[in-house]
């Protein structure tokens, strides 16, 4: 299996351009462009939502109207016209079906091109997949098997109807609608995403996975993901994303919330590969995401792993609020920027409980004329006695036109806590490149080896199937960046 994948790897490194940049001819249904209360009502009605959900959305919308785009990140882009965006697009024949035969064949072709045909997934990997194209969840595999264990894994739109009590209790409990500009916007207009509940004491037997894809032009994608791990449970969750190549910029503003109760553990892994724009910086996805996990109970653990290679602008800080005593938060990240991409990413660890521990490992790789910033906050509150944090932020530069920046903020509210921070910046050395090429590797092969070595500590945290995909992506994103 490993062999097969690695061969493919080499083959794929030789084709450099964005590989997922096709569009699919699926009939789409749109809401009119722009945003107002009627659009919010339209979305809610389309999804046949209960009243409480509409109220929740409207409240968020009204609050959003009072807010301004945040401007503090080290990214630079023209002001977004929020009235020039479609807030709802869905494949027309809504395939809420049980058999794959009934799914739009064009859509199935899309999945095949993505290399994630549902059938394959089912047979080979035993990964339960929820696929969200534009804003609508298309298919959740393995639902039945999971159900038997009491695990709920379904589209958010379904959870709102089938499990309103859970949704009411938890939605917005980690990222309130008023949290920030994009979270408010998302709360008002989110159209789908995944919902996941692991009951007490259950170790989820398979990786749960969502694959997001933007397809329609000029649409914003606003998924909402909510994961709840009840006492003593465990789940590993994967999220992957792609988008077609388009000249205009597409907006992506997702919200992910995780709650881990006593003794529960959640691993959340992302491979983000939205369209990054072309070599001259035209097009690409604006990726403004709020991800936060709450370690609610004692001894709970939330671990974020992300591989960020896509988007023209990435702005995200997966965070942990360590409320339960002895709880643990982790953040492992590789962020690659090439050409004109900009990334401002990092993590926020808020220590509230005693003996809480957090760990941040960030590996930035910048090439071309890109800008790559790490921004992190470690906040140890007064009562978080004996809290510990370790942060390591490394930057790797390829060429001399790119930039790497580190903004670590540290606030310590008591004297028994310890925070360690390490940072390095290095360049891909000529000597290493010469060594690799003297051993027969061409530039792309050498780069792939060096980069994957550099990012190994993070890649190792990914589940097997994803690690291979991620290695491949790193190599493709950096193709042609040396010499």
């Amino acid at each position, binding site marked *: 299996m*490993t*062999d097969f994948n*690695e*061969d493919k790897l*080499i083959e794929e490194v030789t084709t450099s351009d964005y590989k997922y940049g096709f569009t699919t001819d699926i009939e789409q249904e749109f809401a009119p462009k722009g945003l107002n209360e009627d659009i919010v009502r339209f979305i809610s009605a389309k999804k046949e939502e209960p009243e409480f959900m509409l109220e929740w959305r409207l409240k968020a919308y009204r609050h959003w109207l009072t807010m301004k785009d945040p401007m503090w990140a080290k990214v630079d882009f023209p002001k977004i016209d929020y009235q020039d965006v479609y807030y709802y697009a869905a494949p027309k024949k809504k395939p809420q079906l049980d058999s794959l035969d009934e799914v739009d064949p064009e859509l199935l072709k899309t999945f095949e091109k993505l290399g994630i045909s549902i059938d394959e997934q089912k047979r080979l990997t035993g990964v339960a997949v929820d696929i969200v194209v534009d804003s609508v969840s298309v298919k959740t595999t393995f639902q039945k098997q999971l159900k038997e264990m009491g695990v709920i894994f379904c589209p958010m739109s379904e959870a709102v109807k089938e499990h309103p009590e859970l949704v009411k209790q938890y939605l917005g409990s980690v990222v309130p609608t008023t949290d920030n500009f994009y979270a408010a916007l998302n709360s008002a207009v989110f159209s789908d995403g995944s919902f996941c509940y692991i009951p007490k004491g259950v170790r989820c037997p398979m990786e749960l996975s969502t694959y997001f894809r933007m397809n329609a032009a000029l649409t914003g994608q606003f998924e909402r993901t909510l994961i709840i791990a009840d006492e003593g449970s465990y789940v590993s969750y994967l999220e992957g994303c792609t988008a077609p190549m388009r000249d205009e910029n597409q907006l992506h503003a997702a919200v992910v919330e995780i709650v881990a109760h006593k003794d529960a553990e959640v691993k959340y892994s992302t491979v983000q590969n939205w369209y990054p724009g072309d070599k001259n910086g035209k097009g690409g996805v604006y990726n403004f995401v709020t991800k936060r996990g709450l370690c609610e109970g004692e001894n709970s653990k939330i671990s974020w792993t992300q591989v960020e290679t896509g988007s023209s602008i990435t702005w995200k800080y997966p965070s942990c609020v360590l409320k339960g005593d002895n709880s643990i938060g982790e953040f492992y990240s590789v962020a690659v920027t090439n050409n004109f991409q900009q990334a401002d990413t990092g993590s926020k660890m808020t220590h509230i409980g005693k003996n809480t521990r957090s760990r941040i490992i960030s590996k930035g790789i910048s090439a071309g004329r890109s800008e790559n910033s790490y921004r992190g906050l470690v906040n140890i509150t007064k009562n978080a006695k004996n809290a510990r944090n370790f942060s390591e932020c490394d930057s790797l530069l390829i060429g001399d036109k790119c930039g790497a920046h580190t903004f670590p903020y540290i606030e310590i509210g008591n004297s028994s806590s310890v925070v360690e921070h390490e940072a390095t910046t290095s360049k891909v*050395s*000529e*000597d*290493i490149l*010469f*060594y*690799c*090429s*003297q*051993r*027969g*590797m*061409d*530039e792309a*092969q*050498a780069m*792939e*080896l*060096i980069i*994957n*070595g*550099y*990012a*190994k*500590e993070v890649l190792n945290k990914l589940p097997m199937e994803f690690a291979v995909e991620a290695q491949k992506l790193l190599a493709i994103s950096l193709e042609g960046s040396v010499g």
Partner: protein
Amino acid sequence: MSLLKVENLQAKIEDNQILKGLNLEVNPGEVHAIMGPNGSGKSTLASVIAGREDYEINGGRILFEGEDITDLEVHERAQKGIFLAFQYPVEIPGVSNANFMKSSVNAIREARGEEPLSAKDFLARMREKSALVEIDKSFMSRAVNEGFSGGEKKRNEIFQLAMLEPKLALLDETDSGLDIDALKIVSQGVNTLRNENNAFVLITHYQRLLNYIVPDFVHVLADGKIVKSGGKELALELEEKGYDWVKDHAIEEQTA
């Protein structure tokens, strides 16, 4: 046909003319030793044959199996069968020896239109070749040269040489920094790999190595040129009389 032919090679870096019209011919089955004072251009010659781009070639050419390779890229030359054992092997953080060798072996095979080695064959080959230079298995999962002692790095170079079985191996001071036992192991390794189809160029400062790997020819490189060539006795003579003897000798020859 000769395996390697270096004709009137001139190479410079920045404004430093380092190779000043160097000639060298190596045939299959031969072992050549190149000796010469520090800074005379030995490593430069090896780098230029391997194709390092930092140097500008401003005269002459390099033929490999009759083909002019002067303008080929580093990896293309490696794929044709030129191997350089580095004087100072670099460390590659996070990349295991096994993974590095796998990329290397398969890149070369791919260039020759061969299938990549299966995991099983690859591991078997690693086991066999690491035994040849008495490298412990645990080395394979460690990062390339990271935290290796000087001697271990050199041994690792010979391990890689054994894995790749090149036609032409350039060994740049592989003997420096080796203890007596390691020197014997490395030399035995090289002797095992020697055959009538491949050739070795040993760059060394010490006649001692040549007791173990007996050369067919010894050349003295001084000031960017080969100033004297001879059989294996030349190394002994050099050890006794020093480089000044050759340099004076060369000047005499030139003025004569």
